[in-house]
């Protein structure tokens, strides 16, 4: 399997362990990634808030770069998925608009083409279940994560709005994390926060609202017996992990729960060492998870 790969900004910024663990896991899974190193930020919904055409053109540029490779595109960030799907919806809705956008891109010799079957841009989570296949993933598992209790945390941008995010065709996209956790041998922890918001988009605007959300979900997962959370979104990771000590102050309780990126959880089951997967870079200690995993090996 070969894919055009958009790593996003945060995976090469404040969560470098995500980009690194994706590279390792992809190789072990036999997925070849062609990085779109000329591509630009998706705008995270913020650029669209400022100027829709600007966001749409920037993402049309990324899609066009992916289309030049002749491959389907994969991202590793729920927020990229949501922001890019929003722009793609507008680009695909209107040919006059698309021509206008492509006219802007022509200076670089690029054009976004609306495919008959639709241009495919999938988060690693969707790709793993829908294209790679859970059976094939199960075959690759070298170290089943037996006894590891994992709370799923999706991120809003791969959940809602359902009409935009392909739920008509793939209605179980809001259950894929549970499916993946089980295939990797882990135990799913049900708790209230799995499909709620991490609060990150308002961290600079209303810190208390933002951290109350993150702190509540982490606390709920701890109360439900989780050893860790897993998320396909690095922005959720920033609020749930990097801000966890601050979130603990806002909700007034001790937290201290490891938050893994999806490729890290996959990587653990593929047999990689937690250090290789960058887990010591996390703010919330991953030692409990590391101990549990090394006891399995």
């Amino acid at each position, binding site marked *: 399997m070969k894919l055009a790969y958009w790593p996003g*900004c*945060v995976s090469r*910024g*404040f969560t*470098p362990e995500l980009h690194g663990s994706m590279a390792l896991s992809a190789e072990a899974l036999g997925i070849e990634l062609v990085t779109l190193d*000329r591509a*630009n*930020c998706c705008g*995270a*919904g913020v*650029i669209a*808030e*400022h*100027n*829709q*055409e*600007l966001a749409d*053109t*920037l993402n049309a*540029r990324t899609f066009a770069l992916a289309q030049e490779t002749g491959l389907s595109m994969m991202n590793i960030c729920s927020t990229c998925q949501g922001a890019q799907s929003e722009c793609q*919806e*507008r680009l695909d*809705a*209107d*040919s*006059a*608009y698309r021509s*206008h956008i492509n006219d*802007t*891109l022509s*200076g*670089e010799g690029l054009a976004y083409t609306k495919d008959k079957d639709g241009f495919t841009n999938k988060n690693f989570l969707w790709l793993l279940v829908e294209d790679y296949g859970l059976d094939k993933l199960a075959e690759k598992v070298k170290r089943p994560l037996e006894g590891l209790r994992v709370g799923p945390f999706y991120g*809003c941008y791969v*959940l*809602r709005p*359902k*009409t*935009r995010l392909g739920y008509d065709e793939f209605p*179980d996209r809001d*259950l894929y994390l*549970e499916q993946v956790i089980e295939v990797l041998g882990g135990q799913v922890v049900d708790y209230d926060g799995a499909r*709620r*918001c991490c*609060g990150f*988009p*308002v961290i*600079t*605007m*209303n*810190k208390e*609202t*933002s951290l109350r959300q993150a702190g*509540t979900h982490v606390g709920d997962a701890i109360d439900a017996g989780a050893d860790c959370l897993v998320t396909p979104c690095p922005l959720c990771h920033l609020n749930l992990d*990097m*801000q966890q*000590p601050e979130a603990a102050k806002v909700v007034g309780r001790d937290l201290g729960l490891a938050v893994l990126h999806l490729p890290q959880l996959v990587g653990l089951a593929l047999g990689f060492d937690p250090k290789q997967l960058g887990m*010591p*870079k*996390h*703010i919330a200690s991953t030692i409990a998870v590391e101990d549990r995993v090394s006891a399995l090996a």
Partner: protein
Amino acid sequence: MSAYTLKVRRYQPEAEEDDKRGAYWETFDVELDPTLSVLDGLLQAKNDKDGTLAVRCSCRAAICGSCGVKINGQSTLACKTQLGEAAEEAARMARNGGGEAEIVVEPMGNMPVIKDLVTDMESTHWTKFRRVTPWLLPSGPPPEREYIVPAESMVDVTQSVACIQCGACVSSCLSMEADPDFIGPAALAKAYRFVGDPRDGQTTERLYDLANDPHGMYDCTHCFSCIDACPKGVAPMNQIMRLRRLAGDDHGIRDVNNGHNHEMAFVKNIKKKGTLDESLLLQESYAPGVKGKLMPRVSAIKGLLGSIPTAIRGIKTGKMRSVPKLIPGVHHKLPGDAQGHVEEIYERAEESKIQLNLYIIGEGGEEDHAAEEVEPESVSEEPTTA
């Protein structure tokens, strides 16, 4: 006819039995056609099993907005959800291999419960709704007859006009769960309905008011819950984004949450670097022009200082050890001529600023709808035929 089990969250404030103190769950078996609604199921249970089961309803046709509830966790109207669909969704979420599952019905969230499925709309929804002055405030003397405006100028408010005040979006709002003072999706969508109305004379004042309430338009966390909850396609979050665009970009209002500063810092960051320079974003969100021009607000300085402990932790673990991640502005640009092409996109798009309105042309709709350039409209002097 099919059999369904409704698992209802109940609260009977007058009950004297020990097992009915506080909220409790009760299941009701009903038998109805799968195409009939969850509301029909609840009314059958009330009629046949327990007359004390309280549910608010009236039109049964998704018009009056009375029967807002949560079904399988999703805020919606009980009359607009079919029993068959609800049972399938319950089984899907239960992940029990397509077996039978109970349809879970709860009162709406973010509001006090009066009895069973009846919530107190007054203390939250209507109070927040009145907060945004939900009526027209025209300037100048009224015209002799009706106000006449061009049909195109009403296009952008059409979506928010469709609201039936059911409160499903308020019930689903994830920001309001964390901040009960948040004005919320229903009221803000209604605010846009008047801000965007060419007959209203208080546009700037309305925007200023909502931008300077710390629980106003910048308290929305982009979770899209209200979009999925709304039974009428109002997409309240989209209206909140329109309010932000109008306030910060078109009316130049500096809001109390630093929301517009954050937006502009982000926009400029990508123009300069192509991908996000997080350290620069943080600095410029809180304190634009810290190197010279503008005096940052006290709240901005506090925000910037407040992020220092997080940064120190990041440096310790190695998350932020490399220089480009730590020093604002050192982050590399896109390779080769790519950055120049991104700048070209900015020049063109900031000039034309086209807003495609999918509510009007249809989502994922058909081809060849002309892209409309939306400009601030004014009241037309000339009568036009719509």
